[in-house]
């Protein structure tokens, strides 16, 4: 890994390098209560639109009654040291900050969604046109930025500040005296999808590895979650523009054809608005 330097716009990974900061986060899942305070705080702070998340909590249940267990897994951008999104972004809208943040430049982004397809963690989303404050960026990619605005002012990210169980710890992992470095050194930590080679910088303690797997999420989704997902696809305003959502309860020949035609009609119907809703 050490020799790989492509895709950072000249910024090599800073982890373990003296004189450079490398901000990272540890989430101690033994302390996480799944209260979603992080989600709510982040949503409020950044005006994250309905249906999109910068941070969210994945919940799963295992075992059979009475021996059941609830697992929670806060998910966010992993601020990878080898970010595929940065390498694939065609306009350098997303880039690697020397201190380890993976950031988004809204004024460069063209909304092509390459980064979203490239991200193994589904950590990116497209901002809708309808924001609470119209001055906020619209129709471009967005993601968790480890609250760089707060961090550069000496504060922790808002999810960390709002964490009721004290499960999230944030800091410079290159500084051996920092809390985050000490926790990582003293505990067995896991990362999500390490086989993808992205070198994620969000570490989990007490991670139930089978749950942190797309295959598990697909095969073991609850019926209610499945229904809610299809409802989301049917009703999402953004889904009409993106024109790729398949409602998987209707996938016979006519079902697929109907959805394809429906998606294309929506795509064409929203096209004029796309051109006129803000030139640049």
């Amino acid at each position, binding site marked *: 890994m050490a020799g790989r330097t492509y895709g950072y716009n000249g910024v090599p990974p800073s982890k373990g390098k003296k004189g450079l900061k490398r901000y990272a986060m540890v989430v101690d899942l033994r302390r996480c209560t799944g209260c979603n305070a992080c989600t709510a705080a982040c949503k409020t702070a950044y005006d994250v639109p309905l249906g999109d998340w910068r941070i969210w909590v994945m919940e799963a*249940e295992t075992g059979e009654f009475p021996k059941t267990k609830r697992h929670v897994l806060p*998910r966010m951008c992993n601020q990878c040291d080898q970010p595929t999104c940065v390498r694939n972004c065609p*306009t350098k809208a997303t880039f690697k900050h020397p201190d380890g943040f993976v950031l988004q430049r809204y004024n460069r982004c063209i909304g092509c969604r390459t980064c979203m397809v490239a991200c193994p963690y589904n950590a990116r989303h497209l901002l809708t046109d309808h924001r609470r404050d119209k001055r906020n960026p619209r129709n471009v990619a967005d993601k968790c930025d480890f609250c760089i605005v707060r961090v550069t002012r000496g504060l922790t990210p808002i999810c960390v500040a709002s964490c009721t169980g004290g499960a999230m710890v944030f800091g410079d992992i290159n500084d051996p005296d920092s809390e985050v470095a000490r926790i990582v050194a003293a505990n067995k930590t896991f990362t999500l999808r390490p086989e993808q080679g992205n070198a994620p910088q969000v570490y989990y303690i007490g991670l139930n590895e089978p749950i942190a797997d797309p*295959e598990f999420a697909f095969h073991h989704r609850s019926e209610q979650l499945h229904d809610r997902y299809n409802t989301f696809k049917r009703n999402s305003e953004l889904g009409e*523009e993106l024109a790729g959502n*398949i409602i998987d309860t209707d996938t016979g020949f006519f079902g697929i054809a109907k959805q394809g035609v429906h998606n294309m009609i929506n795509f064409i119907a929203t096209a004029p608005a796309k051109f006129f809703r803000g030139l640049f």
Partner: protein
Amino acid sequence: MDGQVISNAFHHTYWGFPLALYFWLVGGSAGSFVVSTLGWVFGVKKYKPIAFFASNTAIAMLMVVPLLLITDLGKPFRFFHLLMLPSFSHWSAPMVWGATFILTYPIGMAFYSYFVYYKNERMARICGILAIVLALCTHWYTGVVMQLNPSRLPNHASVAPILFLTGAYISGIGLLNILLWIRNRFVNTKKRVRTSILADMGRLMLYGIVFDLFLLGNEFLQMTYGIGEEHTILYDVLLGPFRWPYLYIEIIWGLLLPLVILAIPRINRLRYWVLAASFMCATGVFGMRVWWVMATQYYQGHF
């Protein structure tokens, strides 16, 4: 492991039908242009009469592409960001290579068409060589755009661009066959394309179908030896929500049936059978574009 996910964020399929249609059109354009150059570049004289029409068809199909691509952007008027090398656009991103190809490929074809029209053999050959390289690159990059997403199976396979190119070749010939037949109904007898030419193009399509099936077979074999994710994708495309685009439309309708039609000596030179096979190929490849773009995003949308 027993258990179920009871709460999670929802994710869209970010690239959908418009992108699939775009891949299909670029492929059709590249395939048409390959046929167009057979006469003037590769010296197969019997294809010379259709070169001009095939090249113009390729240009027409490519004209729709920027409309689709630009409209699909969140910020359509920022499309020029892709072309502002070296400071603005990102050289390592395949989409930037593609933008360059999409810009230059129709220009190359237009010059080729011009010299074919005026029967300038030498210049047509030079421009044809340049344009065919660009045609192949344009479609190669669409495969690469999908391939360079390491977390997306089965897109992340080195066979992806070749699979795309083979699909382009057969769908392009299929579309061209149908358009030539339609054209025959509107032009005078002298300008009509003979059925034997259509049948010969059907033969070219047959080679492409065999190669496509060979590649898909290899891909399938590799998937059966995969880990859980590969098996999930296999389930999705064989029994799950993408069984129609993959199994029925691409494999059976788009490849196996045309293979049978074009391999039977008695009917593979009859006009309507060749046209039927051409139609099947052209539409079948669209099924491939749909599942290739959307299946893996659909499945990982639950993560």
